[in-house]
């Protein structure tokens, strides 16, 4: 039996007003299963990032509700929301994931340092070994390669054992080999540690690491797919183009 790690009900997000109004999310209902690796795909501008930000409590919603576990995020004030992000959510962004003045080690334990809690050293060691960064712990981000930086970011996201990790195109800036390393690591954390992960991606290949793919177009969920492979995802994506989605840009 699966439980729900995060959930959104009739989630709507509108940017701007009047003429310039953009409906980025249009009544989205979604639930994220615990212990599973979910990918969100869709053409550019379809609202993937917006959905992730709203689910993660980084942005306010225009209407609808969002839960992480059984906490309703839309009812929380900034302080409580910040604490919830710190304690229950991990993040990996496409770029600029690390604080340049801190070492890799310090970046990994940053959320716990902010919370003032003691990291579980065994767990942190396990993660560091899994991402293979032991020899780089005292390096500053500027002394690490892009792939290494993203691995540090993944390690940070995992280190505090969050209930859920959100990743927005974590491999968007990486070459295919480093990308595969990072994705493989994310998948392992799901398989071996039971971590819940939601990942936004453009890349069918990346999506194939997930266990479930949700397709977004024009701020609505239009399809989903279980146990995806790169080919099936690519096929599905091509159909968006053929359907002539007005906001769709050619996917690289």
């Amino acid at each position, binding site marked *: 039996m699966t439980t729900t790690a995060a959930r959104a009900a009739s989630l709507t997000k509108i940017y701007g007003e009047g003429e310039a109004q953009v409906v980025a999310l249009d009544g989205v209902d979604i639930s994220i299963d615990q212990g599973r690796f979910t990918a969100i795909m869709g053409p550019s501008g379809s609202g993937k990032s917006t959905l992730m930000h709203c689910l993660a409590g980084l942005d306010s919603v225009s209407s609808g509700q969002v839960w992480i576990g059984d906490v309703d995020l839309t009812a929380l004030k900034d302080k409580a929301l910040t604490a919830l*992000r710190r304690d229950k959510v991990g993040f990996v*962004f496409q770029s*600029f994931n690390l604080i340049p*003045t801190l070492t890799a080690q310090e970046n990994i334990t940053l959320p716990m340092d902010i919370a003032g809690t003691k990291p579980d050293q065994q767990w942190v060691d396990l993660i560091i070994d899994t991402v293979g960064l032991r020899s780089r712990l005292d390096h500053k981000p500027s002394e690490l390669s892009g792939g290494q930086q993203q691995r540090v970011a993944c390690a940070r996201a995992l280190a505090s054992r969050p209930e859920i990790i959100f990743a927005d195109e974590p491999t968007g800036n990486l070459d295919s080999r480093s990308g595969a390393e990072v994705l493989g690591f994310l998948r392992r954390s799901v398989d071996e540690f039971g971590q819940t992960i939601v990942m936004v991606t453009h890349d069918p290949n990346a999506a194939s690491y997930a266990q479930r793919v949700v397709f977004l177009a024009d701020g609505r969920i239009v399809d989903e797919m279980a146990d995806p492979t790169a080919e099936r995802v690519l096929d599905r994506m091509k159909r968006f183009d053929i359907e002539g989605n007005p906001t769709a840009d050619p996917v690289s």
Partner: protein
Amino acid sequence: MLRASLRNLVAHKLRLFLTALSIVLAVAFVAGTYVFTDSLRASLDTLIQQNQPDVTVRPAAADFSPEFQGAGEVLTVPTELTGAIEDVPGVVMASPQVLVPNVVILDDGKPLGAETGGFTGGTAIGGDWPDDAFNPNTIAVGEPPVGAGEVAIDTGTADQLEVAPGDTVTLLLPSGERRDFTISGTTEPRAGSNFGVSFVYWAFPAAQELLLQPGQATSIAVLAEPTASQQVIADGIRPLLPTGLEAITGEQIASQVSEQLDSGLGFLNTFLLVFAIVSVFVATFLIYNTFSMLVAQRTRELALLRAIGASRGQVLRSILAEAVIVALVASLLGIVVGAGVARGLQLLFQAAGAPFPSAALVFQPRTIIVALTVGLVITLASAILPARRASVIPPMAALRDEQPRTRGLGRRTVIGGFLLGAGVGLAVMSPQLAEYGTTNAAIMAGVGALCVLIGVLATAPELARPAAAAIGSPFRGVVGRLARGNTRRNPRRTAATAGALTIGVALMSAISVLAASTQASVAGIVDDVIGADFVVTGYGFQPFSGEVSAAIRATPGVAEVAVVKQAPARAPGTGDTLITGVDPQDIQRALSLTATEGSLDDLTGGTVALDSETAAEIGAGVGTVVQVLSVVGPVDLEVVMVYEAAGGFTGYVVDLPTARELGASQQDNVVYVVKETEADATSVEADLNLALEPFPNVQVLDQSAFKDSIGDQIGQLLNFLFALLVLAVLIALLGIVNTLALSVFERTREIGLLRAVGMLRNGIRRTIVLEAFIIAVFGAVLGMVIGVAFGALLQRILASEGIEKFAVNGAQLALFLALAAVGGVLAALWPAWRGSRLRILDAIATE
């Protein structure tokens, strides 16, 4: 490209504002200084122009510097000359006048304003109420004084006393007599201001009787026919005058006074400009820092411009054009704010006791030209380096580069190190130069200190990393770690921001050390030199009646009394000075002066004792005859003793009869009192106070009170200097605001990330505030080290001038440090608030 510059300026209003603000403040100080002195000058000019009779007959040789005038005997003119003068062709009227400088207005038995001190120290100018034709004043309320029992007083004094016509005022006359008078009216000047000086007027006969002898006046004012030449009339009067008197035209007096004012105000102007230059120097730092940051942030944008075909020169010019626009706007604003600064200076001087009027402000073209030039030059000088740096970056390099990298510090550090070494060398050697004159040594020390300062500022980036780590080390946790990291990531920026504060704190510390040393030395001298148990002085160091010393002599328990008189003179080696008159026997019981040559016992009529410093300067020794110009004319004096100057006791010393001959007044300036050895000090002091009750204008100070009274004066001067440095420190703090605001802007993404992974707004704020704290403490400590060292150096150089002891006011220095830290924290509040308000998503959104 000009359009691009303008767009840029408009697009970044905030940054523009911050850059401009520092220029505004620096320019405002410069402009304010000029406006202040020009306004003062203008208000004095109206006074001089309006108040001169066509011709004045007065005692000759009355043109000593104003601070020495009135210190000696009141010289007089016989009134009987009036008739003869009126017979001179072209003269309409001649009128004898009385004006003496030392009438004391009593308020509840104490001299009015004595407590607050100030220039006049409770003393009023007393005179007759002249005929309208000669009267620079008018009656504001009431009537002119009539008879022997009535006076008119100036409105300001009446307000202070809270009296009105019809009330009574108690006066202490120069003769020592205390009398009540009825106030007939209050007066106000026809033009200008009284400059805070109190005035008391009687009808002429009463003034003559109370202040002078029958048949005497202090001058005779002459009214000429409108068509007559002042010069011709003066020439006509001159043959009538006995020797010692002169007839001088109104124009001559005006130009004489003008000259004195020019030199006095010139000094004041230079003095204030020195502080203004400090502010400008500090502001230059800030502007340079801001432009560096702005350009660094725009590197990619500029590179894009280059990539699409803008030339190097175009990029350079666009940045400089931006700088010129900012400089012009800010300088104009600075001139406007300068009016506020001028007003502030007026208030500051008033608070320090200088009675400068709050007159209308004068903007001369010169002020505006200087202010604009200063603003343009410092802004362009600050912008040119960053602009050059930006223009030489190859376009692709800049586009690729995410974060502008700090370049090596090598060359700068080497030059800085060299300057530092040279500066220390100069400074260390400078005390040796003191033999050849302290001014030279002080200049050398100053140049050394400047080299050290610039050297330290140049090498400061190297220091910034370890210093930031050390200062930040007590702060544990992420906040501490982040703040330390932020101050260390761009050491140049940290150093430049802190450097501005370093300059201000260095100056304040040096002044503090010098003042503490002076105080300690004075106290030491009082201990070593003054054997007297009590010192009796007038409030505000005004002279007092001879009856005081008589009353002291009659007090039980008093063993020795030594009286000191002063006579204004112009003497070789000292310029305008006061010659001290003492009784050689008495004074040796009260003071222990060290003779380097001769003996004070030989001091008799026509001889003089000289301090060694002055003696060396004019090459005099025992036996040399020196000529001094006194109020009664040139006098030859033979040197019989050379002594070591001890604190306030310096310069020319003669015996009492000679002092009188030189024009010292009948009044005394200081009385030293030695008690009988077995007498109890407390009871003698009580007896003295009792005996001196009839003389409310004098105070009895025991040794420690005497030290305190000198200490108070130094403290007052100190506060005044600190107030002038405040603006420089404010600009430095503004620099912290600026740097942090721009840093926060630069770190938008980083802050967003921290917020995303769970840092509360408060955490962001604390990080930024702590960063400011580290920068401020770093700058202040650096400044303090330099300042204390420089202060110590100056003390050594000035040791021969009497500042023999080195002392540090630890509490004061600690206060500076605390204030700098608090200032830094306050400076961070706004950037911190902004940082904490940044939208998280702005940070995460990829470009």
